[in-house]
């Protein structure tokens, strides 16, 4: 590794760490950060293919309210580094690395969020004296702590990363590896089920089966499926509103009869 790749990798990790807490630009999502990692190491293709695989696995990992999910950022940065970087792990091996660092990252994330509380309390002191620029600085300081949360572990991983990393993974028996291959294609379902949990009611499972069925039968580009989905959803809203209006108007009729 040259000096510039080291600087670029740690810089990318720092930016991803900030993006991870902001949840605005989505640079930290595997699709983006693993591709960039590939770009840093001159292996864009590998980065993109690994990013796509990992993206579908973490697609349902979201932080809602005060719950902190396994950390996508550290998982994507470190596993991207191991797959696109000099260790050249396979995609399945990379996913295992990502899962391990997702859990480690979750604890680092909770720890950092507690550290940030101290910065916020310092900001309270600036508020008390009306130091407006102190308040602004505190916010940016907290943000950079979140960048370090990913940059520091990445730097440590780079320091320990050498040719033996690949050897350790290649020592795994081939049966385990082919089992992993099947497993990796299945674990995305866990993330999907988190999202489905958000929307599922007793009555709307038909839409899920309809989605599965139309996709299998039509075999068209995924973006066309998005359009079809939008059309279905809008049509359903229009139809059910129409029906409700009908029902309420027929209710009115009954009321009229009662009046009579």
């Amino acid at each position, binding site marked *: 590794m040259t000096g510039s790749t080291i600087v670029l990798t740690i810089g990318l990790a720092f930016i991803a760490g900030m993006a991870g807490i902001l949840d605005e630009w989505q640079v930290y999502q595997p699709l983006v950060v693993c591709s960039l990692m590939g770009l840093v190491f001159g292996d864009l293709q590998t980065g993109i293919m690994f990013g796509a695989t990992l993206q579908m696995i973490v697609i349902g990992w979201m932080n809602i309210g005060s719950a902190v999910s396994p950390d996508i950022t550290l998982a994507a940065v470190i596993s991207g580094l191991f797959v696109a970087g000099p260790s050249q792990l396979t995609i399945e091996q990379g996913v295992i690395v990502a899962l391990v660092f997702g859990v480690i990252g979750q604890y680092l994330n909770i720890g950092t969020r507690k550290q940030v509380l101290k910065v916020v309390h310092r900001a309270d002191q600036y508020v008390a004296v009306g130091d407006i620029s102190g308040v602004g600085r505190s916010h940016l300081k907290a943000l950079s702590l979140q960048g370090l949360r990913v940059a520091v572990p990445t730097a440590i991983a780079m320091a320990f990363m050498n040719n033996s990393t690949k050897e350790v993974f290649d020592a795994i028996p081939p049966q385990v590896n082919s089992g992993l291959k099947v497993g990796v294609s299945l674990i995305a379902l866990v*993330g999907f089920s988190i999202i489905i949990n958000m929307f599922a009611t007793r009555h709307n499972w038909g839409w899920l089966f309809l*989605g599965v069925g139309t996709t299998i039968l039509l075999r068209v580009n995924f973006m066309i499926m998005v359009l079809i989905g939008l059309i279905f959803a809008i049509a*359903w809203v229009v139809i059910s509103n129409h029906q409700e209006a009908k029902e309420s108007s027929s209710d009115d009729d009954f009321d009229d009869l009662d009046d009579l």
Partner: protein
Amino acid sequence: MGYDASKKKQISKKTRFYVFLRSSLEQGSWNFERMHNLGFTYSVIPVIKQLYPDHDHITRALKRHMTFFNTTPIMQSFIAGVIINLEERYASKQITEPQINQIKTAMMGPLASIGDPLWWGITRPVIAACGAALCYSAVPVAGPLFFFIAWNILRVSFRAITQVVGYHEGVKVISIFNTGFLKNLTKGMPVFGMFMMGCIIATFVKITGVVGFTDQITGSGYLGSVLASSISALVALLLLFICLRLLKKRIRPIWIITGILIVSIVIEFGIKIFVM
């Protein structure tokens, strides 16, 4: 000090643009105590600077925005727009101070209950799935580019538009919560979400062994591939229901993932030994 409260104060376009720029850093100081409080304060600092020249008013403004704040980050611009309007009116002595935080608190809950499913449950998964699908096309680099660009165009324009609407409408935006538009949105979102998750399952979960197995019986024509995908999808749906059951029992997703990996390895090991 040149602070004349009787004169109507107005926030300049430039200041509102600065608020918009800062809004993309809103969650930077996320904390377990008051969540986005410092982040919200950070984003409205340009407003405070323009409205209040004296130390006393600045301190009070900072204090009132440092209270608990939490909503879906992208929905925050809507609230920020309304707050700019309210701060303006407070500085012109048209409303009282507590009203500012009352409106803020009243908006954040309902906006989060729409914003979380809309952005995290639908928009991001669907755009990410489109991006991931593009990665397997002839131009793989289109995948990450599409995801990044499409998401940020939607996010940035949503933030910009809602901040402007919030600013111009002020307190009147509360009436938006009662219009048919939101009712239709909450009605349509689960339908679209469930349908898209069905498409995502059928597109991305390929049970490799099954596909090879059916190819031998059916050949690789249209019907053959439909049959192969159907069997694959049935296995996937079965596994999905097991996952949902386990999630309902409050088992952490990471343990379900570990379980699936171990079972796959054990089965594969068993098959290999059996065949040999």
